[in-house]
């Protein structure tokens, strides 16, 4: 094999991913969609991560409030706390943090699972059992992530508001009605819609990179660990890149 420069290497990696993505996309619409496996995967992906994402959201809300309270008080703007926490969590911090956590939890487990199936010839066994592994394993996992990660994010966002309320109430005595009134009325569709679309894209990239790494690392048991590791790294990078692109697009569409 010819030695490749790092730049060429990442170009080749992106090309491989693009090829894998189009084969995923083609297989969504093939007949014989694996509904059972889709529901099973959605359940696994959602259920396994609900604890950690809820906790993260809750603590994020508390911390955001506690961190900004002293500064805002100094300017006599403590009453802005609910709106500030709400906007920053829902627009940016919630989706990105939850996606990064899911990259660590879900992308790695998909990568490891598929890679070990590959190494132990289970994927070959599926092929000779009349199944299409892309359809059965990849399509279902990616779609399950695309559905479950937005739901997990919405749930975590809600918990962040609850956390924010508790922290604010303990430090300045705001009523629950007033807090949530302020937190929710500040939001309009330009905050919510782009953030929601973003989480779907994060979900797709988590599922996709997990599957891609699982299918790429297929030599010996050592590759199972590599697949998990590299799935986390690559999907985190994609999350950051997608975030940047979506913010830029949103700004240029909505505010110019």
């Amino acid at each position, binding site marked *: 094999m010819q030695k490749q420069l790092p730049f060429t290497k990442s170009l080749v990696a992106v090309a491989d991913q693009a090829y894998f993505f189009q084969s995923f996309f083609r297989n969504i619409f093939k007949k014989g969609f694996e509904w059972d496996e889709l529901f099973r995967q959605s359940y696994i992906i959602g259920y396994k991560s609900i604890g950690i994402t809820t906790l993260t959201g809750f603590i994020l809300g508390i911390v955001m409030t506690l961190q900004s309270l002293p500064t805002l008080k100094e300017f006599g703007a403590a009453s802005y706390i609910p709106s500030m926490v709400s906007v920053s969590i829902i627009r940016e911090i919630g989706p990105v943090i939850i996606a990064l956590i899911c990259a660590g939890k879900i992308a790695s487990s998909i990568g490891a*699972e598929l890679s*070990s*199936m590959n190494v*132990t*010839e*289970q994927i*070959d*066994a*599926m*092929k*000779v*059992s*009349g*199944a*299409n592994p892309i359809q059965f394993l990849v399509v279902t996992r990616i779609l399950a992530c695309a559905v479950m990660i937005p739901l997990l994010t919405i749930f975590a966002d809600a918990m962040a508001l609850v956390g924010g309320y508790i922290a604010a109430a303990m430090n300045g005595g705001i009523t629950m009605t007033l807090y949530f009134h302020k937190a929710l009325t500040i939001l309009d569709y330009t905050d919510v819609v782009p953030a929601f679309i973003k989480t779907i894209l994060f979900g797709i990239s988590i599922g996709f990179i997990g599957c891609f790494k699982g299918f790429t690392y297929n030599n010996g048991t050592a590759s199972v660990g590599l697949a998990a590791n590299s799935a986390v790294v690559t999907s985190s990078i994609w999350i950051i890149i997608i975030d940047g692109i979506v913010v830029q697009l949103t700004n240029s569409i909505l505010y110019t």
Partner: protein
Amino acid sequence: MEVVIEIKNLKKSFGDIGILKGINLTVKKGENVVILGKSGSGKSVTIKCIAGLLTQDEGSLKVFGEEIKDLKEDELKALRCRIGFLFQSAALYDSMTVRDNLIFPLKRVLKIKDNALIESRCIEVLEAVGLADAIDKMPSDLSGGMRKRMGLARTLIVKPEIILYDEPTTGLDTITSKEISNLMLQIQKKYQATSVIITHDIPCSSITADRVLIIDDGVFIAEGTHEELENSQDDYIRSFFK
């Protein structure tokens, strides 16, 4: 007799290392062909090519008259429904129970929907391999030999026309080996299945083989019935049977 597998001058290498260096093999319908050979000589690679899991570099490989490497994805999938493959490592689906492992090919290859029929097929095939009471276990709870038999059950449940066995009796005790070999023979007789059997187990070969081939360094060096090769003039060939 109808020819079901026809391999001509098949070559396959991984990187710079040539593994298959010109394999020729013709298998007729209903025939049991046994392949013997040293470890690493390319036996598994040969049958993986037959199932379309690996693609040859050169040569022609026809199954049911169709050139495997020219088939489209869906055509290959349809053809594979007629082929059963027992993996050397059994390749059970770790995340599914024994029952779900069996249902997987049943639903996809034979498209059976009736639950009662599915259940009776599962029990029938598990009884044949002596695993009837393991139906609700996970593969990780099975012993090595049980996994092998379970892999065999999953291969046989769809009654494929061609069965590719990769070391079906390795890791089994002598008595179970004999039972499995007899089961393979029975399947050949009952369903006129065509089989390619890779084995190191001489009793298995003597029970099942209509014809034996010996592979060495990527080519077949001898061919004949089990008795012929066992009593060959050539010391090297005879040494496989000791």
